[in-house]
């Protein structure tokens, strides 16, 4: 079962790399923000899977919870700033 989780997290890492293309090349500011949000959601799932691979779920799940909170707060802060000031 650990091998299945390993393959799953490898596939998710590949998807993160594909999303990073949109984050680097994507025309304009908003495409990059969407790509960063998507990568953050994927990284939350990858962190939980890492806990199952290393048999230390009780430690990794707290990190994953904190990362989910930070991802939401960061995206919301940037969106509100841009809405008030106009595109950077």
């Amino acid at each position, binding site marked *: *079962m650990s091998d299945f989780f390993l393959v799953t997290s490898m596939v998710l890492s590949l998807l993160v790399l594909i999303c990073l*293309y949109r984050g680097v090349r994507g025309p304009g500011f908003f495409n990059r923000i*969407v790509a960063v949000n998507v990568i953050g*959601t994927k990284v939350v799932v990858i962190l939980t899977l890492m806990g199952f691979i290393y048999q230390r779920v009780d430690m990794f799940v707290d990190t994953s919870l904190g990362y*989910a909170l930070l991802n*939401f707060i960061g*995206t919301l802060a940037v969106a509100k700033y841009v809405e008030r000031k106009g595109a950077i």
Partner: protein
Amino acid sequence: MEMIAVILVALGIFLFASGTLGLIRLPDFYCRMHATGKCDTLGALLVLLGLVVYNGFNLVSLKIIFIVVFIFVANPTATHAIGRAALVGGVKPWTKDSPPGQESSSRQER
């Protein structure tokens, strides 16, 4: 029980892959947001629920369920906030008459 977990995780990976395909291939910022906002939420929900089913019932599963509920509330909210900021900021949606391979607004090119 492991079979249900494998099926749930595989469905979640399929949804993540289709969301990434939409993020790469769709023509406009709004279309990309439409693809990723739903596919990522449901994909994360399915993968984490598969892990809960595999783990059994204890405190770690409760924390994972809390992550699932938080993502289910927060991810559409973040998507809506970005979309509203773009609409207020003057990014025009893509239409059929737009020339292919070109972004819609000049403010977006920076």
